[in-house]
């Protein structure tokens, strides 16, 4: 069978379009996804979740208050607007995860439960995922020379169990379930206690839903992540200038030389 050029281009375009849509499919397939609920009103900052995580992942059991290759989850405390705020930091398991798109060798994958994990035997250690992450979650492990981060305990979640940190929390600050149910729960808690919910729409919908006493994004607790696909109009202006201006400038830059060439 011969493929004409036009058909080839059509096919290539169709493939590119379908590929680009399939990368966002997860954001819509929310009924299959699981999520972790963090209730900032209940958390006391005891760090038992960190301990449980380290036991489960056989990491050195010393407390850290920063994400590192040896710490996949920790609770940080601070005061914002006169209120004491505690936030659990770990991988957010984004619905449209930049790390997943960034990894050149598909070492980062999405499990059936929707959690994003790194296959460390596959990782080449280029650190693009670390730079790409909205939340700065993946960390480089200098000993094994691979990226590492929370994997949402995807292996035991698929067997019907809860992630280690959720299982361990004695204060009922963490909960786990289908993402839709978790969002409902989060909204109810926020209504009752006058809190804010974070993570429903950010980055294609996060796999960790937060209920906090303050607006986290407004106060810079989390970086600003766009909720919908949008492009700054200023970019287009610059592109338009370039597209119009560059050929004109380019033509004048080489005009005399083109003419001279013919005369030679």
């Amino acid at each position: 069978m011969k493929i004409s050029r036009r058909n080839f281009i059509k096919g290539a375009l169709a493939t590119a379009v379908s590929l680009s849509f399939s990368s966002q499919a997860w954001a819509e397939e929310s009924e299959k996804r699981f999520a972790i609920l963090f209730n900032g009103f209940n958390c006391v900052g005891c760090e038992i979740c960190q301990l449980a995580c380290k036991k489960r992942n056989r990491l050195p059991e010393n407390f850290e208050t920063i994400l590192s290759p040896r710490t996949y989850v920790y609770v940080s405390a601070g005061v914002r607007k006169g209120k004491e705020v505690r936030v659990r930091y770990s991988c957010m398991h984004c619905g449209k995860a930049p790390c997943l798109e960034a990894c050149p060798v598909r070492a980062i994958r999405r499990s059936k439960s929707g959690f994003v994990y790194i296959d460390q035997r596959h990782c080449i250690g280029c650190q693009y995922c670390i730079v790409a992450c909205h939340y700065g979650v993946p960390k480089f492990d200098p000993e094994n020379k691979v990226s590492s981060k929370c994997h949402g305990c995807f292996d035991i979640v698929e067997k019907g169990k809860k992630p280690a940190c959720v299982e361990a929390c004695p204060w009922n600050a963490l909960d786990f379930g289908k993402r839709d149910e978790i969002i409902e729960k989060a909204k109810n808690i926020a209504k009752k206690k006058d809190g804010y919910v974070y993570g429903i729409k950010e980055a294609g919908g996060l796999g960790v839903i937060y209920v906090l006493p303050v607006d986290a994004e407004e106060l810079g607790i989390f970086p600003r992540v766009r909720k919908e696909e949008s492009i700054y109009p200023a970019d287009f202006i610059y592109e338009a200038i370039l597209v119009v201006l560059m050929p004109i400038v380019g033509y004048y830059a080489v005009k005399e030389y083109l003419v001279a060439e013919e005369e030679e």
Partner: protein
Amino acid sequence: MSKLGYAWIGFLLIVVMLGIYGIITIKFIGVEESPIPWNLLIVAYVFLAIASTGLCVISVAGNVYRLRGYKVVAERAAFLAIITMLCAYIPLLVHIGHVGRMYHFVTSPNLYSSMWWMGFLYTLYLLFEAAEFWFLIRFNVVKLSQEATGIKRTIYRVISLGSRDLSEESLKRDAKFARLMGFIALFAALSAHFTLGTIFARLESRALWYGSFMPFHFILSAIRLGIATILLTTIVSYWITKKEMKMEIKEFFTGHLRRLFAFLIAFSLIYYAWLISQSVLHKETYFFWHLLIAGPYARDFWLFQIVIGKIIPLAILLHPSAGRSLRGLFTASLLFIVGSFVLRYQWIVVAQTLPLMALREGLITYTPSVPEILVVSGTFALLALIYTIGIRLLPLEKWYVVTKAVK
């Protein structure tokens, strides 16, 4: 070769040795974890990749588009483009944790990843650029191999890949293939470079890099850096071989290339002004620009990026007498290269200094570690070493032989 020449080569060899020591330290002994993921090694890679693309554009402008003037530097630019790209891989491979697993690029590619595309396109580019260069010099290398004796003869035989054809026909065929290969190389270079820009530009979380105009700007800076590199290297190689520069080259440098260079530098100043003014609209972007303009990075920003990297070169180029002298062009391009390395360094480092998720305040501070500096300086020394040997060995200015054959 003069005593000074031997001293120069000896110095370069020592720096290369130190670079190898740096590689061994990073790869096998282990160093302290860098506070930012993409450090000086990546800065050097991006800088060299930018230079390589610019040189490819210049080479192709002469070889494929047959612009007068550019023809005289086509071979030199192609040669520089290849060795710059090859050297660019050194810091990149040192930075990558598991080079042995790189075959995953072939076995499990991620087609959404700009990095995968960059790797693919740069490999393609390197192959076609090498092919272009080979077709440009083949005829003269075969000629040289017949004249030379001993080890030089063997080297020329290896470079010519066993070809011994010196007929008129073969010269015409060479010119045709060189043009074809050059055209494909240009296409691959521009797409690869656009993808390199995209690697940074699509990262929403790093406001300083983010923006759909960034890839375009990458291509403009490539052309700027390519012009600066070709000016610097050509002038230096005429100085060290103590030959009088050919009138054709001198006219081209002080005329067209000087004007284009000055225009592109002026354009980049306007671009900066636009970038800073529009960043006011976005809180996140402005945060980084504030760090650069008035924050802890302000001194290096104003001194190196703006004054040394842009204003002084622009003033020299526009000066009626200094701009038309080789000394002036040399100074301008050297200052510009220094300035653009600092630009790349600050651009990559500053964007990573903001911790993205923390209740604490404070910026990450980064100073390059000693092994990193050794590897990067070793890479630049290797580049200079290959170039020093290359200008003595390869026929880099025989353009007229190939281009005459086309008529």
